[in-house]
């Protein structure tokens, strides 16, 4: 694989989609306000949970805020890359323009998962980092090298898992064409990533760690932040992320075999 070529192509992707998105400047502003309000809303909801209780599932309010920060970053990444590209995939398949993508001398998964970008998601990512640095202060976390590496590893794994989940659903578009509602289901499930896993009942906890590994996405990185995480959990997350990434790749290649274009 020619890394330099892919980097060069990605630069072009960035350039073209930023240029087209920046045409709607007020839209970006509205999206920013939406992201801020949504963060305020979730902190408000958390404060309702904590108004008469010191702990939820063993987490203090200040600690639960870390989860919110990580969730906001991941949600920003979803809005920047996964969501706009999924829209494109659906369009490609419905209109049959996936043919053109497949004919290009470039990896099709790379092309369809990174083609588009939505700049308003950046602001949400920044908002998340802002909240996280605030949490680091109020929780008095020491910024050591091992902490930084571990949190980098776990958050990257979360991004990989999240990407694979989105890409799985995008891939099913090849058979079902309309996948908007499946995405809505995923989104509503992801919503529980805003809360510590331990605050749910045992059966839901099992469901969200084995069947849809949402638990891994926010809870494990937050535990790393608090220095509570055991090594086996981090290793498990790395394994889950690798398996998910590889399966999503296999699944895409498998799905392409049943792709039968659309008449124009």
């Amino acid at each position: 694989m020619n890394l330099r070529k892919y980097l060069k192509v990605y630069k072009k992707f960035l350039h073209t989609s930023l240029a087209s998105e920046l045409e709607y400047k007020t839209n970006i502003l509205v999206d920013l306000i939406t992201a801020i309000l949504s963060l305020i809303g979730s902190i408000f909801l958390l404060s309702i949970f904590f108004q008469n209780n010191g702990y939820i599932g063993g987490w203090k309010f200040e600690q639960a805020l870390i989860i919110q920060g990580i969730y906001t970053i991941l949600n920003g990444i979803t809005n920047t890359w996964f969501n706009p590209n999924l829209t494109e995939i659906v369009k490609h398949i419905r209109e049959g323009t996936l043919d053109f993508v497949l004919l290009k001398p470039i990896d099709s998964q790379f092309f369809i998962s990174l083609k588009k970008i939505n700049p308003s998601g950046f602001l949400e990512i920044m908002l998340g980092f802002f909240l996280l640095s605030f949490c680091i202060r109020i929780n008095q976390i020491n910024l050591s090298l091992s902490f930084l590496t571990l949190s980098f590893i776990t958050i990257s794994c979360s991004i990989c898992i999240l990407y694979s989940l989105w890409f799985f659903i995008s891939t099913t578009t090849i058979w079902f064409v309309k996948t908007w509602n499946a995405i809505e289901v995923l989104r509503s499930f992801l919503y529980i990533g805003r809360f510590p896993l331990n605050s749910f009942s045992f059966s839901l906890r099992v469901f969200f760690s084995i069947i849809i590994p949402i638990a891994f996405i926010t809870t494990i990185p937050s535990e790393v932040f608090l220095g509570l995480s055991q090594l086996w959990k981090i290793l498990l997350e790395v394994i889950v992320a690798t398996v998910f990434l590889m399966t999503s790749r296999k699944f895409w290649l498998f799905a392409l075999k049943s792709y039968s274009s659309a008449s124009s």
Partner: protein
Amino acid sequence: MISKLINRKIFTLLKVQYSNMLEYRVEIALWAISGIIPFFMLNIWTNNNLNESINISDVMLSRYFLCAFFVRQFSVVWVVFSFEEDSLMGKVSPYLIQPINPFFRYFAQHLAEQITRFPFALIIIFFFFIFNPESIWIPNSGILLLSIISTFLSFLIQFLIQSIVACLCFWTEKASSIERLLFIPTLFLSGLLAPVVSFPTYVKSWIYLTPFPYLIDFPANLLSGNETNISGGLSMQILWIFLLFPLFKKIWAEGTKKYTAMGT
């Protein structure tokens, strides 16, 4: 004579839209599933005994969230997204020539979707009762009728608000981002994630003046048999409809004057 004509038009529209919606049964089923967030919230509330502090028993709280789910199912509105797509594709032009306001078409679409959704919502409720048999109850017919009316009024309020936002398409073309912005207070303040009773006093002091608690909290409390002011709630719902309807008519009249056809 005139009312008969209108009746026939609406009836025909409904019939067309219903057969249209029946084609998308799977999508609607998935959409029904995506509304289960209230059940996750219920799980957090009861699993951490948060309800003790607001004096609602486990059973009453589970009924509340079940009703919140149910009310939400029948008051989901997406007219902005339909209208935005139609207006970008230039489909609005032929609708404008027809001797009926195009919003009747969307209205019929929503009603037809609700009829299609009904059996799926019942299935989800059935499963809920299997897992929580102690929360089974049968509301008396008077309450049932009143809650159906107030759910419909809640749907009307949301439909009017979204129609007003949709009319902004005449000016900005991307009205859906404004709708996403408005959705955030709806999500957090309507009582979908936490009953309004549990809100801190500094919010409760003004929230009943906004339309939000009448969207889900009021109908859900009514249906589940929790304490609520029936006549006050219904009259506030009607008041909001009377406030929003003239606004919609005005913005519609202004917008159609601004309208420039798009598409081919």
